[in-house]
């Protein structure tokens, strides 16, 4: 990580450590889950140039697996979280292998189509509880700590988020990340230099799916249920919105985007009802038309302009 990012990361971490004193921890945990989901998505869109339109299926799939592991198999919480993550990564490997054979909009279409098929499976399969979902998932304990106490769980969720965020940063600034950027910048050139780009894309896809899965698994433990909503294509659209609104290809953009969207939904849900969808749509249109680099991207650009003016 660059120095500035490290400082921002540590500042954010300090804020989050203190957050439950001021904000309802469940809300912050929800924000953190979606922030992780958006960061995982950004790894693929912002740093590899691949637009997946089926990412909710990894969030939802992991949510079910973790829910099942904790409720039916009564496994320890950490093992349940791990099971969800691994399952999402495996599903990512299958969907990714099929999708990376196509480029651009066709890639997005394939991910959407496959995600819809898996969604249908979730709807029909007995272990998901169909329309009702999996209810009453136990949170369990961690090293003797009772996770059904919100504040205990909060620090576990924060650790998961901080660790994953660090891993994503490391991936972006790794030898592997360097090749991902090369592929995003000029795929034929990367091939002509001897890189098997399909393998790099697939690994990026699996990492992204696995981390999206970890977000879904964590969400199940927080809310004690897993439902079809998590796997629905609406959620796939939402993560695109969060990433674009915050600033795709920026480090903190997805976190900011997820915070804004989740908070808005939370605030507006009981006030305007189903109008929420319309408001989200409007935000999306304004974002695409007026500030394409997103909140973080535009702020950085503004900051650089101001620095430039001072220097000039």
């Amino acid at each position, binding site marked *: 990580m660059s120095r500035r990012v490290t400082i921002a990361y540590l500042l954010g971490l300090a804020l989050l450590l203190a957050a439950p004193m001021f904000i309802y921890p469940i809300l912050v945990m929800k924000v953190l889950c979606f922030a992780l989901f958006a960061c995982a998505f950004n790894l693929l869109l912002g740093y590899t140039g691949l637009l997946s339109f089926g990412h909710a299926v990894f969030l939802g799939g992991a949510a079910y697996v973790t829910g099942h592991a904790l409720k039916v198999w009564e496994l320890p919480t950490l093992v349940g979280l791990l099971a969800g993550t691994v399952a999402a990564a495996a599903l990512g490997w299958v969907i990714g292998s099929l999708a990376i054979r196509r480029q651009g909009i066709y890639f997005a279409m394939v991910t959407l189509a496959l995600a819809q098929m898996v969604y249908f499976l979730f709807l029909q399969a007995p272990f998901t509880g169909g329309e009702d979902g999996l209810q009453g998932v136990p949170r369990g304990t961690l090293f003797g700590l009772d996770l059904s106490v919100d504040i205990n769980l909060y620090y576990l969720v924060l650790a998961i988020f901080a660790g994953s965020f660090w*891993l994503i940063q490391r991936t972006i600034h790794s*030898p*592997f990340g*360097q*090749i991902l950027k090369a592929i995003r910048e000029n795929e034929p*050139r990367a*091939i002509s230099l*001897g890189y098997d780009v399909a393998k790099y894309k697939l690994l990026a896809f699996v990492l992204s799916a696995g981390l999206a899965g970890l977000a879904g698994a964590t969400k199940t433990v927080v809310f004690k249920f897993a439902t079809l909503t998590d796997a629905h294509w609406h959620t796939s659209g939402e993560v695109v919105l969060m990433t674009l609104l915050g600033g795709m290809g920026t480090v903190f953009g997805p976190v900011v985007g997820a915070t804004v969207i989740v908070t808005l939904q939370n605030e507006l849900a009981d006030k305007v009802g189903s109008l929420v969808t319309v408001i989200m749509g409007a935000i999306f249109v304004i974002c695409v038309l007026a500030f394409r680099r997103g909140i973080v991207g535009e702020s950085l650009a503004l900051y650089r302009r101001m620095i430039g003016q001072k220097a000039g």
Partner: protein
Amino acid sequence: MAEDCILETSGLVKEFRGFVAVNDVNLKVRRGHIHALIGPNGAGKTTCFNLLTKFLEPTRGQIRFNGIDITREAPQKIARRGIVRSFQISAVFPHLTVLENVRIALQRKLGTSFHFWKSDRGLNQLNDRAMELLTAVDLAGYADMVTVEMPYGRKRALEIATTLALDPELMLLDEPTQGMGHEDVHRVMELIKQVSANRTILMVEHNMKVVAGISDTLTVLARGSVLAEGPYAEVAANPLVIEAYMGTEASGLASIPANDDRPPGPLPGEGDDHGSLRSNSGGAG
């Protein structure tokens, strides 16, 4: 060794929905040569390159590299065998720095390219070699610049440095001097000559001064087929070539003007003697 062929195609054909872009091409590239591929726009030169590097699948025919049949291999595999190409449209990584561009090419040999858990600081060990390559193409002063901000001619030079980073046995250059000013053309020509010392070069080139100045062998392609092949003087005197280029038998390839910034395209037929074989021996005047 004189007959040693590094690359050989037999009966190479590429059809695009019935349109034959490359028609029964039998190409022999000799080891150590600078082999130029010329021909009017649309003759199929770039398509040929795409076939040789497997960016396109041949409809028919065979490609052999060092005697090995590579017709069915994947493009990245071809690159790893030592055939590295450049592109007609400048192929750089625009939002990476100039140094990073070259480093991407060097990085594969480290074997850490899938290591997502490692810091990219480990790549700094490649910086010295990358700087050497940049110095060779006169770009050392640009190392930290974001590539997109460099002038066009410099980007082409960077492309050559990146290609060289792989130390390819066979280098394929698609119009390396296209769109360059007089000075840049001369520099790139000298550079190609210099790097050809221990490798083979196959290049598409429109600038006759460059072709006459540095190529050992010349293949003329027209409408997908090979029209003539041989040393420059021989090919330039071939009536078929003269006709394809001029549409007339009155003037020859020897009378083609060789202005450095001439746009690519069918060669014009003005009777200016500036670019003739004789007046070309002195390089850029």
